[in-house]
């Protein structure tokens, strides 16, 4: 099948130069997107290092495919079929047996009505469109949807809506009638004519309608003929009136119907052979059709337009009670008939023939290759229904799952490439039990985070599906982006959500640094509402608590503020380089009119101060020896090499004040406690 494999390859010509020593190169974009550019051959060689003298075009092409679903109208198709799909998946799990079966039938009809609505809307849009190029685009879309409907309805008749004991032909007749409307159009035109039978297409309309089994209209048309009072016309009318019609309401078995029909046909034959109609050659054709004359069908083949119309018309007058399994035999005959007449059979014909042959895999396979260039919509949804109907065996395929999942993945992958339809895609992936989750992970990692809203949406999706790794990555990326924009507060909250310790630590240190430099906090709101999240890192706990200290101090709750401050120091929550600041913060508490810090607390503060000074001293001597053992005064001096660890002269002065204040406070506290104690 060399021809078919060639057919499957799309040859795309791009407006890029082809030169010697050059090649096209590609880079994957998001989903179905490739960037293609012309480049030198690979790998780069040393001699290529110099810029080449020839000026080159440096265009990059942004190539996308399977983009047909992204038009405004077809997007509606995507969204509406999505809700049908999701509902059906729910029903599959909750219903069984005949209840499920009726739901499946309903779903199939819903899909078709969505398709129909979409086609109608496209037709409306097309008729208003001025631009010829766009018109032809819409025209293509309409054609495609028509084809899809044609295949879908046939599959529905043959595989989904099966009713044993019913006449399959009635459904097939409806199928033909709804897809071939030219006969009815002609009839309407003819009827408008004052003298109907003078219309050049009068007989054509009659034949066309008759071939579709539209007996009522045929009788109406014939009654408009000038000679309708003559005997032959009356005879035909009687025959038509008598033609057995299958009604579901009649409690008639197929065998009974068959008997009735045979009687009727014998009567047609008899009247024809009696030569009742020889006066009107056209009327004779009508009766010949009624008799199921092979020759007359061949002659009027063109009125059927296609082999499958011819098939149904022939069956109607030759084997109305045909069993579904026998369809393939007649289908091949009709196809052969058209092929002999020089008509080339296309992809659509092969798909329909495969359906008549009940070869579902072939239908799906051919539809995939023929239609999926535009979109996987059709095969994915049809296969899903057929799968639930049990028509397609769910054998595990080489790629790891079954056919249904394969097709759903293809369809969903297309949706995931789209900037808004990706949310629909997520739902489809959810119903791919084997590989859907892994696909979703990969997609989520590459979906662009355009806005906070989208990021939150994605996070929600991750949470619902327990994809913690992906959720973390999203928060991290968002946090980095906020940092980049200078929105440190939002950045911190993103990092907190992702529990990203290093990043949160980094930011916290930045906040603390900022406080040290400017003496105030930014993002107070965030800090005040940290809650338990502050336990994420030591620094953050300190930052949160330290901010709480400031708040308490501002609210004049000095006791609480003092004990918090002390706790920060005594429990070593505060980083060492912040101790000076903290101790300084204690100063105002020591100078208040009432005694805030008791003796015990004051001792602890003094202890902390001592610890700090000792450390500073040790450090500075170390630093001094490191520099070259230059003799130094025992006092603490800021050394250039160790400046980060040590403190400035002014801070040192402050510490001296603090020592004094502590001593004063201690004396006050002893007095204070002494006076109250006696009780």
């Amino acid at each position, binding site marked *: 099948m060399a021809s078919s494999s060639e057919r499957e390859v799309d040859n795309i010509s791009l407006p890029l130069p082809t030169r010697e*020593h050059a*090649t096209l190169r590609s880079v994957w974009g998001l989903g179905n997107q490739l960037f293609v550019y012309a480049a030198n051959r690979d790998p780069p060689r040393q001699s290529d290092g110099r*810029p080449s003298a020839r000026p080159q075009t440096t265009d990059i092409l942004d190539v996308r495919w399977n983009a047909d679903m992204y038009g405004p109208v077809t997007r509606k198709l995507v969204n509406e079929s999505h809700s049908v799909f999701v509902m059906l998946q729910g029903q599959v799990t909750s219903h069984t047996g005949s209840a499920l079966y009726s739901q499946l039938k309903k779903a199939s009809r819903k899909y078709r009505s969505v398709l129909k609505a979409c086609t109608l809307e496209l037709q409306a849009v097309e008729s208003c469109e001025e631009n010829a190029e766009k018109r032809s685009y819409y025209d293509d879309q309409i054609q495609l949807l028509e084809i899809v409907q044609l295949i879908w309805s046939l599959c529905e008749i043959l595989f989904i809506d099966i009713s044993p004991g019913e006449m399959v032909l009635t459904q097939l007749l409806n199928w033909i009638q709804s897809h071939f409307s030219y006969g009815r159009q002609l009839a309407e035109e003819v009827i408008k004519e004052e003298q109907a039978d003078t219309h050049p297409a009068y007989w054509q309309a009659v034949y066309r309608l008759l071939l579709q089994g539209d007996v009522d209209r045929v009788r109406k048309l014939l009654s408009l003929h000038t000679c309708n009072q003559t005997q032959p016309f009356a005879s035909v009318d009687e025959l038509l009136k008598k033609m057995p019609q299958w009604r579901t309401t009649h409690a008639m078995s197929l065998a009974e119907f068959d008997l009735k029909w045979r009687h009727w046909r014998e009567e047609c034959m008899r009247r024809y052979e009696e030569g009742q109609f020889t006066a009107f050659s056209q009327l004779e054709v009508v009766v010949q059709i009624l008799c199921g004359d092979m020759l007359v069908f061949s002659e009027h083949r063109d009125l059927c337009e296609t082999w499958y119309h011819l098939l149904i018309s022939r069956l109607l007058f030759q084997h109305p009670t045909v069993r579904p399994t026998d369809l393939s035999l007649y289908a091949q005959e009709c196809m052969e008939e058209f092929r002999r007449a020089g008509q080339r059979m296309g992809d659509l014909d092969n798909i329909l023939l495969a359906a008549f042959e009940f070869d579902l895999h072939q239908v799906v396979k051919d539809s995939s290759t023929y239609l999926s260039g535009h979109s996987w919509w059709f095969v994915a949804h049809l296969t899903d229904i057929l799968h639930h109907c049990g028509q397609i065996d769910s054998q595990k395929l080489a790629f790891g799952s079954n056919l249904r999942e394969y097709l759903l993945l293809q369809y969903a992958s297309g949706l995931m490439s789209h900037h808004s339809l990706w949310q629909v895609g997520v739902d489809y992936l959810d119903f791919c039990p084997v590989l859907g989750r892994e696909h979703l992970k*990969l997609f989520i990692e590459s979906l662009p985070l355009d806005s906070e809203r989208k990021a939150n949406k994605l996070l929600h999706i991750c949470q619902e599906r327990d994809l913690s790794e992906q959720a973390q990555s999203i928060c991290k990326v968002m946090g980095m982006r906020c940092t980049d924009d200078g929105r440190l507060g939002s950045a911190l909250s993103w990092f907190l959500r992702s529990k990203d310790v290093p990043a949160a630590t980094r930011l916290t240190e930045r906040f603390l640094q900022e406080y040290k430099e400017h003496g105030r906090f930014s993002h107070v709101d965030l800090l005040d509402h940290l809650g338990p999240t502050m336990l994420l890192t030591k620094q953050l706990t300190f930052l949160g608590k330290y901010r709480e200290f400031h708040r308490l101090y501002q609210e004049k709750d000095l006791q609480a503020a003092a004990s918090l401050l002390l706790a920060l120091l005594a429990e070593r929550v505060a980083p060492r380089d912040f101790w000076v600041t903290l101790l300084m913060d204690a100063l105002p508490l020591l100078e208040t009119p009432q005694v805030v810090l008791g003796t015990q607390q004051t001792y602890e503060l003094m202890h902390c101060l001592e610890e700090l000074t000792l450390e500073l001293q040790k450090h500075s001597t170390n630093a001094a020896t490191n520099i070259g053992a230059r003799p130094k005064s025992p006092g603490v001096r800021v050394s250039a090499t160790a400046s980060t660890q040590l403190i400035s002269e002014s801070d040192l002065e402050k510490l001296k004040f603090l020592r004094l204040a502590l001593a004063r406070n201690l004396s006050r506290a002893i007095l204070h406690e002494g006076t109250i104690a006696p009780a």
Partner: protein
Amino acid sequence: MFAAKSISADHKDLIHDVSYDFHGRRMATCSSDQTVKVWEQGDDGQWHCTASWKTHSGSVWRVTWAHPEFGQVLATCSFDRTAAVWEKEAGQNHWLKRTSLVDSRTSVTDVKFAPKHLGLQLATLQLSLLEPKQSAPSNVSSGGKVQIHEYSEVQRKWNKVETVVMVAEPVHDVCFAPNMGRSYHLLAIASKELSIISLKPLRKDPAAGGTGISKFEMRQVAVFDEHESQVWRASWNVTGTILASSGADGFVRMWKANYLDNWKCISVLKGDGSTGEGPASIPQNSVTSGAPSSIPPNGAATNGSGSSVVSHEPPARSMNIKRNTGWPWMDIKKDQFKLFY
């Protein structure tokens, strides 16, 4: 089916590489004109150049993005024997050079970031001035040109686990497919032909314990010679379902498996070219023995034994994985920096 939109990159010389950031809204291009350009996609879907600056004093071969978790970071490599790392300045469209790696004595031909779970690590590849050493003659005789290495957490080193014997010609590119739940790994090898190899992990010998080297059942899933001669590059899409290759015939071809796992060409992209001499014939390249190496997108080994790297025989180029220090963001996942050699 196809819609193509042209972006005028406006480089003054040939583009060597186009790289797309992980979320698909930014693109970086590099060229022989020694500059790198960064592009952003606006809400209107158009691409705008937001930054363009001279990066090197020679042709820039490759440009690549770090994962956005590390902020906006680019790495470039050039003919001028250096590789550089760039970071966008906060709040501005200005890129700062964070580091310049000058270890190479020859042109640096490839640069790649490690998978994000390894932290911010960079691998560079340089042309070797030395004659290719045939360190493992057995390999040469068996003709294997692609080796699979796997990182062992226990031993803290990379072990060679397999040699792909199916490919005997010089290799230009290798690429692991993202694993979307398959029970096997897919490896695309661009050589004289494009081959797709499936690697199915075999159960480890329990007696060997944690140090056991994983074994793979290798199968050649497909070989394509449609490119007629050399295949230069191969790359997978995000889910590892479509492979794009570019070859000496000047075409880009896309390959996809149907549900029966038959790989087929699904489309051919070609220029409608001006010179019209048909596909350019490429003379045999003398330096083809060395080829860009790649780090797979994720650990190729299944049971947590880390990731695998693919390199080539003979070792015409040396590979350095650099640890960057003195960079404010470098302390992410400190402990994971132990993983370098």
